[in-house]
């Protein structure tokens, strides 16, 4: 019976042109988005991979020079572009991809793509994820707003009931029809995406990518199922199909457009993040006081790098300076990043009311384009910088000048450069992602349960005719 209902309903979508027109446009958009995403990802990935390789070669090829100057030349590290960013570029446009690891200070990840774009960028990033998160629910509304309300207006609901069709069978059948309607449109996209992900994955991480892809599919399936049941519930409850449509559109606008911005403001209000001036000045103040303290304790001098300290001690001084700095840097950057994560977590939990927030976070997480994974890269890059620093300072200490008045005259050779390992960054595994994002699944499942319950409540066994 359920299948029969679903079939009849689906035929109606096809016959009245809704599937062809609304769906056709959607299909076209999704396939285009995937094509563009694929091209972008494979280009970026290849380019960064090559640049990373070149960079290390240049490091090894350095002439004889002072280790500290080598540290000034530093290294660039490039963030790999994960294969699933084809589907969801996540925060990609708003974070950089390149860090120049240089002496003295932790630097920012630079070159945000959005800075090379016009103001239009702020309308959103064209991606398959964006389309499914924002437009697919609208499509379900268009397909389903008159599911019950329309039948009631036409009087066919009364007929159906008189035939002994159970109202619950009607609900499940209509839900299945909506799922089929949206499913038919998404299948080509899923096929293209799957092919792209398989082709772009590194062979060793194919399983990881495949699992991520499957979970991503699951997350979106739950998200769309939520929409289906909310649409059916409202359609069953509404007095007319006009009222159903207007209420659903209002819900959609609030849910995907209004609420995310309000929540973003609210989260910033609850967990305020510093401005760049505040951050930089707090960091400098702390660094200076810690440095001064270390200089007093270690060398008994009041100012850093002054004439009181013989040049032969500069290697040790460099190391002391760096090591004191590490703690301060960790504290400040850690606090800032924790604030970002708290802001995001709060918005994710708001997903209980606004599912798009939960699915967005989950989707980015699984695609490897969320903040957690960006942070992981930043931390790894900083670790690499410290490795370089420490090797250089060590060498300076080993070669401290016995005469006491030389420091920069010393030149290290290629053997030292080779001591620095290449930056071999592995993106976090799925297990790490799930540890951060299990709540996303929990939230979406809870919302789905609530949506089904709502639909069951509004489609009682004895449906009001």
């Amino acid at each position, binding site marked *: 019976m359920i299948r029969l209902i679903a079939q009849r309903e689906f035929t109606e979508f096809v016959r009245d042109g809704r599937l062809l027109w609304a769906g056709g446009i959607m299909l076209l958009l999704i396939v285009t988005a995937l094509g563009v995403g694929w091209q972008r990802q494979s280009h970026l990935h290849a*380019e*960064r991979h090559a*640049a990373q390789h070149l*960079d290390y070669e*240049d490091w090894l090829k350095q002439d004889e*020079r002072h280790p500290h*100057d080598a540290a000034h030349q*530093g290294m*660039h590290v*490039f963030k790999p572009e994960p294969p699933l960013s084809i589907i969801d570029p*996540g*925060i990609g446009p*708003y974070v950089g*991809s*390149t860090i*120049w690891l240089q002496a003295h200070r932790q630097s*920012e990840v*630079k070159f945000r*793509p959005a*800075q*090379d*774009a*016009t*103001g*239009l*960028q*702020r*309308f*959103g*990033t*064209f991606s398959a994820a964006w389309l499914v998160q924002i437009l697919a629910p609208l499509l379900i509304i268009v397909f389903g*707003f008159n599911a019950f309300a329309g039948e009631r207006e036409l009087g066919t609901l009364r007929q159906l009931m008189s035939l002994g069709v159970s109202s619950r069978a009607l609900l499940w059948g209509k839900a299945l029809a909506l799922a089929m309607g949206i499913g038919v449109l998404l299948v080509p996209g899923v096929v293209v995406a799957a092919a792209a992900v398989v082709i772009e994955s590194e062979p060793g991480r194919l399983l990881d990518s495949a699992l991520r892809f499957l979970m991503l599919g699951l997350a979106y399936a739950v998200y769309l199922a939520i929409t289906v049941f909310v649409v059916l519930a409202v359609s069953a409850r509404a007095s007319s*199909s*006009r009222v159903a*449509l207007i209420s659903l559109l209002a819900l959609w*606008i609030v849910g995907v457009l209004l609420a995310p*911005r309000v*929540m*973003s*403001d609210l989260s*910033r209000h609850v967990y305020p993040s510093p*401005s*760049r*001036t505040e*951050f930089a000045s707090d960091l400098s103040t702390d660094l200076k006081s810690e440095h001064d303290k270390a200089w007093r304790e270690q060398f008994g001098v009041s*100012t*850093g*790098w*002054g*004439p009181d300290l*013989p*040049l032969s001690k500069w290697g040790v001084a460099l190391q002391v300076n760096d090591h004191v700095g590490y703690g301060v840097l960790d504290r400040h950057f850690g606090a*800032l990043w924790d*604030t*970002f994560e708290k802001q995001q977590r709060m918005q994710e939990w708001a997903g209980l009311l606004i599912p798009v927030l939960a699915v967005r976070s989950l989707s980015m997480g699984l695609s490897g384009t969320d903040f957690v994974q960006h942070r992981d890269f930043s931390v790894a890059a900083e670790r690499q910088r410290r490795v370089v620093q420490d090797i250089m300072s060590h060498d300076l200490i080993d070669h401290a000048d016995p005469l*006491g*008045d030389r*420091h*920069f*005259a010393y030149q290290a050779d290629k053997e030292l450069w080779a001591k620095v390992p290449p930056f071999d960054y592995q993106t976090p595994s799925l297990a790490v992602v799930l540890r951060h994002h299990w709540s996303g699944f929990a939230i979406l499942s809870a919302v789905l349960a609530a949506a089904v319950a709502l639909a069951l409540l509004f489609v009682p066994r004895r449906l009001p005719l």
Partner: protein
Amino acid sequence: MKARTFWLVFAHEARVLIADRTLPLVLTLFALLIGYAITNGIVEIRARDAAVASILTKQNERNARNIDQLQRINAGIETPAPFSNAADPANVGGGLGGRFAYVPTSALAPMAFGQSDMIPNYYQVTYRSRVNFMYDSEIENPWNLLSGRFDVAFVIVYLLPLFIFAMSYNLLSAEREQGTLRMLLSQPLTLTKLVLAKVSIRAGTILTCAILIPVAALLIFRPETRDAVSLVQLAAWAVLVCAYGLFWFAVAVIANAFSRSSAANALVLVGSWVVLVLIVPVLLNLAVSVASPAPSRTELATQTRLITVDGLRRYQKLFSADYRYSDKPDLLLPKDGRFEVQSRPKAAFMLQRDVEADIQKLLDRFDAQLEGQQSLVDRWGVISPAIIVHEGLAALAGNGSQRYLHFQRQVATFHATWKQFFEPRILESRAMTEADFAAMPTWKWQEETLRRQLSDLSVRAIQILALVLVVAGIGFWRLKKSSAV
């Protein structure tokens, strides 16, 4: 007599809209949203002003301290540390005396955040090359950048059309469905006049609300908006918002001109909104980035490094010369107007100078690319009124891409002047004097001319009004032809 029927319908419609609570409900909700948005804007811009004020205070204190130190050094009271020495031009031209270049907030800044949450509003300019500081970005959670801000521009561009639809999706279809349309048209009243009167009461109320609330809030809480220039800008702002609102009313008229059900109208209207506000801008952004692609940042990074390596090699000798403070502490003091700048800082200065010169071409390509994209957006933006208005509102608020480009160009010029000032002092080892501190380049912001702004805006307003005329023309033509009853 004719005008009287118009007002009769107008007044009647007003009574109906109030009685069925549509008008109070829609207006209250809209007022709340736009009120929230403008509050958000005012609070945010105050924080930005405060941040700039605080860096300027710090800069002034720093400057005073430097001069103070210089006096003490010259008086022989102080022997400074090597890397914070006000007599050393390499120190002062670097981090010790570097000046902030900043873009001030415009009077209308609270109306649209535009690019201001992403592109920095100030840079500390030193002799270091631009690659080192121009790509810093404002600290903001990327997730929030992705979500976008709740500012007045958002309410106008995205939400105003939806509120207009809520008021007018069933402009005629409701009358038709209730059977009152036939009755109405049996009176001496044309369909055109009926629709005009219905649209007038709706447009009059919601657009008044959309304009009055933010403008009043600005006039009260932001005194900068009370001068003549700002008032002209506010007027231009109002024209833009009105034109945009009228466009969507015209779309609603078209939808109603076909004898379809209210539900179908709602669907068509939301569909047009999805296409024009959500999809077209995103696609245009994509098209523009394909037509005028950004040069590779990875390439820039690699080039920067290669040029740096080259420079390090060129100045190898200078870099390996040691500081000689330990055996000669006198080197930290100026003598007869000279200060012997040590080899390493000298080398660092020349390295940065060379990197800048060599990378210039590449940086220019980025600037040209962005300008190319912007001009494409300006040309093709006309395919969606949402784009025209979004860009126009950001520009009026002084937070648009153009003004930031203008800012960055000025920073580049200031940076060049700064280096010019310090180059002979560092390379010829001239000690800093008090007169130097007075003569050091200072940052002066040159605002874009009002004329340019207005000509830009009038183009936008004309574009939208043309769209309004076309769409409304089609709507009313259709109304005349149709037997909409």
